[in-house]
């Protein structure tokens, strides 16, 4: 079973990006194929690495890359959202910019979709 995970929230203003990460890890552990994690709106801030994180909670951009490496999931940034929010030349290693058309195609090809 193939699934698409959509992340709409910034890494710190809510705990939803964490929930999404936990869900992604649990999907991978259960043997589901994660077609992609698609970051929209403030979710694209997940690609930026802060320099510190509170003890006990992950640095999310690194955690997403680790999940991607383990599961084969692609990490996709909505280009419209990114252009509004991220400075030119940002280090987005491991994340790819893509359009909404790709999101809709992935959605069609996936068996399940979940939004955070």
């Amino acid at each position: 079973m193939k699934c698409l995970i959509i992340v709409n929230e910034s890494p710190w203003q809510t705990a939803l990006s964490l929930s999404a990460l936990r869900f992604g890890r649990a999907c991978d552990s259960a043997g589901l194929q994660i077609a992609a994690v698609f970051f929209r709106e403030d979710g694209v801030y997940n690609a930026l690495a802060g320099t510190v994180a509170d003890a006990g909670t992950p640095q999310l951009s690194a955690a997403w890359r680790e999940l991607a490496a383990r599961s084969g999931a692609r990490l996709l940034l909505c280009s419209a959202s990114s252009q509004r929010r991220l400075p030119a030349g940002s280090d987005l290693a491991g994340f790819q910019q893509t359009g909404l058309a790709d999101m809709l195609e992935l959605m069609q090809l996936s068996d399940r979709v979940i939004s955070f």
Partner: protein
Amino acid sequence: MSAMPAFRLGLIVHSTAYAQRSARTQLDVALLAATLDFNLHIYFMGNAVLQLIKRGDTAAALLPAGYRAWASLPGLLEQAELKVFADVACLERLRRNGQETCLPVHACSAFEMRQQMVHCDRLLTL
């Protein structure tokens, strides 16, 4: 990519007008789905249907225009169907206030909305 003919996409819109700064956050997904000729169901939850009403000047509030592009949705579809749903109580408040939506909207209860949703191939919460 070409849309599979019978594919029906349900878009669930929770945000009211300018809950986000950009007017295009949900709109762009709907417009794109329409150009791909998906069968499209759009569910406006609660006050989200305020995205469809007529508004005055937005520039003084430093807000981008854009919501009126919802009205162009039907024209983008070739063969596909478009159905728009919104909460009956919220539409009643609009009617009382003399405000109209820029798309024909089916007024329905939460439960009726849900009965429609299950007929979609895929639901996307925006």
